[in-house]
């Protein structure tokens, strides 16, 4: 250590107490340029802080305003939830049954979770509890990189590679189906779930682990009997956020499901997701028409579902905080 390095901490500790109030008094007196900069930055930070609330409400109001006309006029609740017949452009008998779309989204998301949960929780346990040093840092970076792959790239993998693989392996006519989209979506959701799950594991105090080890528990016993039970709320939240991701994903699902209105009875059936329906149809729909408003009604439904899932995840995490 050089002499300057030695002197720095002492320097700060002696200057700080009297200089800070001195500067504040000065600014209040003069209200110079710095004061305005200070206020402007405060304002920017404040607006940034509440922007999420503004956007959420803005989006909610917009989606509701566009879709609410349909909810009160042409909307048939029973038809919406029970009929698979999504035929908004029929000239003789337009119907707006979303049952097949809801089941399509649900089946793909369900399969995606079956794929993603073991992968992501396994990865989180390994990164959080077993890996050390450089391998741990490399893995974390790679997982984050995986999360950054654009969904259209995933969709393309589903459309080109997975499609022909599924056709060859399972001998089905088309490989664009629940299985394809479920695997793609599972791989997409896994990195985000891994990151959140790993945070949950890290939130478990080291004293727990030390206490368990002191009692002679093996590494595996520590993880299985102590860390996992202690972080189960956080892990649950990671899974729920993955489900939310699955419900909201559009592009990859549009490309990999086959986009076919179908109530699936096997994983080899093509289906169609709610999000993909909106994405595919909204662009060419006359603004303000019944079809347009029906698509926004799907949007309201999706918004409510993802909102509920995220809210549940949040409440579950709060549960950990209380303990």
């Amino acid at each position, binding site marked *: 250590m050089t002499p300057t390095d030695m002197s720095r901490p002492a320097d700060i500790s002696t200057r700080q107490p009297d200089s800070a109030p001195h500067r504040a008094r000065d600014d209040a007196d003069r209200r110079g340029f710095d004061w305005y900069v200070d206020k402007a930055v405060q304002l920017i930070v404040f607006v940034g802080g509440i922007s999420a609330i503004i956007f959420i409400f803005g989006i909610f109001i917009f989606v509701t305003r566009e879709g609410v006309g349909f909810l009160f006029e042409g909307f048939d609740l029973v038809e919406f939830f029970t009929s*698979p017949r999504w035929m908004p452009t029929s000239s003789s008998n337009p119907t707006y049954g979303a049952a097949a779309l809801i089941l399509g989204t649900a089946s793909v998301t369900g399969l995606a979770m079956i794929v993603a949960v073991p992968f992501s929780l396994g990865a989180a346990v390994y990164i959080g509890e077993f890996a050390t040093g450089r391998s741990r840092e490399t893995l974390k970076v790679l997982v984050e990189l995986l999360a950054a792959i654009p969904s259209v790239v995933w969709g393309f993998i589903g459309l080109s590679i997975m499609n022909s693989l599924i056709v060859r392996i399972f001998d089905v006519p088309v490989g664009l189906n629940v299985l394809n989209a479920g695997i793609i979506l599972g791989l997409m959701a896994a990195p985000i779930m891994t990151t959140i799950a790993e945070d949950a594991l890290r939130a478990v105090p080291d004293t727990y682990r030390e206490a368990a080890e002191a009692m002679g528990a093996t590494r595996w016993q520590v993880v299985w009997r102590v860390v996992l039970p202690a972080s189960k709320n956080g892990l649950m939240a990671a899974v729920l956020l993955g489900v939310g991701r699955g419900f909201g994903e559009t592009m990859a699902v549009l490309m990999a499901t086959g986009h076919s*209105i179908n109530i699936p009875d096997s994983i080899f059936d093509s289906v169609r997701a709610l999000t993909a329906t909106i994405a595919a*149809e*909204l662009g*060419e729909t*006359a603004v303000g028409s019944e079809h347009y408003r029906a698509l926004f009604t799907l949007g309201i439904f999706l918004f409510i579902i993802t909102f509920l899932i995220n809210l549940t995840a949040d409440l579950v995490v709060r549960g950990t905080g209380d303990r």
Partner: protein
Amino acid sequence: MNRIVGSLVVLSLAACGGEGGSRALIQNKGSDTLVNVAQGWAEEYAQVDPSIVVAVTGGGSGTGISALINGSVDIANSSREMKPGEISLARNNGVTPKQMVVGYDALAVFIHPDNPAESFTFAQLAAIYGEDGSVDSWSQLGISVPGCDSDEIVRVSRQNSSGTYVYFKEAILGERDFKLGSRDMAGSSEVVELVENTPCAIGYSGLAYATEHVKMPCLSTDDEGDCVAPSVAAAIDFSYPVARPLFMYTNGEPQGAVKKYLDWILGDEGQCLLQSKGYAPAREVACS
């Protein structure tokens, strides 16, 4: 892909537009069926008259028409006619849509090259695609398709707001609806790609999107009628039964730069370019 290319063209054109102050900018938006031709026209016209810059965007017929209604484009491309509701909406906004046919598009039926089928009648297509149609397997048509063990007809269609979907429905199914469970692709090239890779599949799209990896059977309106294979020539002489007009809409009579551009499109040069892209010209024209 087309849209990406389209936006790049727009960006580069916008960049050029910024340099010369005297240039007139024409905004052109709409049908994905027409977007390739519209871009070809815009690029070609930049050489003919550098003082006029045309910015082309896709997005679909509905998108183009609503942009015309809002007054944000000079020319809207559409593969379907404007609906009465859209016209009255435009009138309320002070826009008088003026329709112009710029060409014709033959709608081809695509099957896998291994499929031995050579022809389809309208009735067969309606039985395959129509809501109460009875045909679900190739063997019902007396066809056995190599590589398609399940025998199931994989119906490939378009999303229900596309101009191609609407036209096919009107031409083949009339008042009836499509059978549920078709794979509804978001673009014509996706339809062709899926049919290329799926022996069991049947699909339809504009002739311009055909590749050498798909087979295009001939179509006849009934059992006695001639079976006509889709081609630009058959679309020009109207012998092909499913050819549809492609439109451009302007606000009122075209004037100034827009008029010059549209006149050029309907002229020999523009029409030959359209024909070279796989569409049928709006009038008879001799191209080299």
